[in-house]
């Protein structure tokens, strides 16, 4: 459905997006995850046709965005990070205008306004000026604008930025609902947001695409390197040399409070060897546990360790 091939965008000398490729299938919700300034917004702007790419191409239903801009733009509903509202218009007028420039006419405009305002929970504020709305309501009106022409594809740039916790839950539920019938790309720098709403995630950092996969596969791929935490009473007696000679032990680090963290690869037999080695050395083993990586750890690892998958 959406296919991004070798996309590169430079602003002067600065490379905002560096050779990224991914596809989004019909009906899929893809989460775009990365720290601030990673290139999420730039990528989205290119996919929506707002910015042309420096290299590479974007096709939507096999139509190139630069060759068929109008056909492609009709299929996309885009909500930028800062909702684009005309502050001297009422919500009703804003939605009406957006409907009109998307080619809706007559009765269909009123129907579209009614259905999206119900979906986004803005029925009560239709007659208010958008300039006087709170951030949460502006965000909802922005979402309603993106939905007004019933697009097949929704692209949402940080849809929950600046909302209060209850509003965040509302918007997430709304996006989940929308994801049942549409293809959605949403971006966020907050991890739980993505794990809550998306089936697949793409992690982007410094303009590079670090990983694209389902959440389960991503954590599987990374958790081969699991961590074992040892608590010792007499750490000075620990036979470090022997411990690190065990095949499967990749790394040993000492933490405060006599805690040792071993990065290991391999199965339970490695764990068995480690525990017997520690017990034999007489270091006074008081605790041993296996730490599995959460998605938070994966994200941190990818982003800070620049680990490519």
């Amino acid at each position, binding site marked *: 459905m959406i296919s991004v091939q070798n996309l590169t965008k430079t602003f002067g000398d600065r490379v905002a997006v560096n050779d990224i490729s991914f596809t989004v299938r019909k009906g899929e919700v893809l989460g775009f995850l990365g720290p601030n300034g990673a290139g999420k917004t730039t990528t989205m702007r290119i996919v929506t046709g*707002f910015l042309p790419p420096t290299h590479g191409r974007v096709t939507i239903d096999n139509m190139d965005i630069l060759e068929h801009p109008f056909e492609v733009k*009709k299929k996309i509903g885009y909500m930028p990070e*800062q909702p*684009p*509202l005309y502050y*001297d218009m009422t919500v009703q007028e804003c939605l009406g205008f957006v409907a009109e*420039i998307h*080619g809706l006419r007559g009765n269909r405009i009123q129907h579209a306004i009614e259905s999206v305002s119900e979906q986004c929970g803005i029925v009560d504020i239709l007659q208010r000026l958008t300039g006087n709305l709170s951030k949460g309501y502006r965000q909802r009106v922005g979402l309603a604008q993106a939905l007004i022409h019933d697009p097949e594809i929704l692209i949402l740039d940080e849809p929950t930025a600046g909302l209060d916790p209850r509003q965040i839950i509302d918007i997430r539920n709304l996006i989940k609902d929308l994801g049942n019938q549409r293809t959605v790309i949403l971006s966020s720098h907050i991890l739980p947001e993505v794990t809550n709403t998306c089936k697949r995630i793409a992690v982007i950092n410094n303009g590079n695409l670090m990983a694209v996969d389902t959440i389960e596969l991503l954590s599987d791929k990374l958790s081969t390197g699991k961590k074992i935490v040892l608590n010792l009473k007499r750490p000075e007696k620990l036979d470090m040399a022997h411990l690190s000679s065990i095949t499967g032990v990749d790394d040993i680090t000492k933490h405060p409070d006599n805690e040792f963290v071993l990065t290991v690869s391999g199965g339970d037999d490695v764990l068995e060897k480690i525990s017997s080695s520690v017990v034999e050395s007489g270091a006074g083993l008081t605790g041993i546990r296996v730490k599995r990586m959460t998605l938070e750890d994966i994200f941190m690892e990818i982003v800070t360790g620049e680990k490519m998958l």
Partner: protein
Amino acid sequence: MRHLIPFIKKELKAYFYSPIAYIVAGVFLGLIGYFFYSSVQGFSMQAIQLAGSGEEISGFNPTNIIMKGLFRSMGTVFILLTPLITMRLIAEEKRSRTMELLMTSPLSITTIIAGKYIAALIIYVIIILSTLYIPLVIEFYSTVSWPHVFSAYSGLILVGMAMISIGVFCSSVTDKQVIASVLTIGILVLFWFVGGVIGGHTENISKIMRDLSLFSHFENLYSGLFDTRDIVYLISFTAVALFLAHRSLESGRWK
């Protein structure tokens, strides 16, 4: 292009919501009203003096004496008022990020520029045509040369088209309204006075400068000389400025 009408509607609404349209119309009609009053007074004084001398002077009629000066003033006043109409058009869309909405909608840049230009022109034409009360009042007390009035109003509309196109261009190069308006005034003042107050060293250069000037072409029209050369110049001037505005928006995307 079929999205043009809703786009013009939205732009016109914006003029009346932010009271720019009312303020520009109020200031303009107030000034012109005052000029009208004082030139009628001047005309009556002269008429009394001439009646006493018993001479007959050709060209001494209300159209020439009262209205010609008023038409020139209308054009000159609009050098200062045009930026107020046009500065918001594109700069504000850029600043408030609504440009992102327009550019990701199935609207072409041509539609965006055309919609904004036509909306500003409609406001201008409404304001200019509301001064038609002046020839009507004169017609009531005296006689008016209507062909001359027609030529003058064509001139006003044509020169307004050119001025507004410059305003649209200046608004497209920046996201700050103040910069857009200062640029507009700068360019308009230059094109208004070049060849007149701003002369050249030699006769030939002065002539070229006069040919480039908006004012010299407008002068023929408001003096009652309906010449296609002037019309062609003013329309070409408009087309070039709007083309530049289109280029400026298009190239802004590629930076």
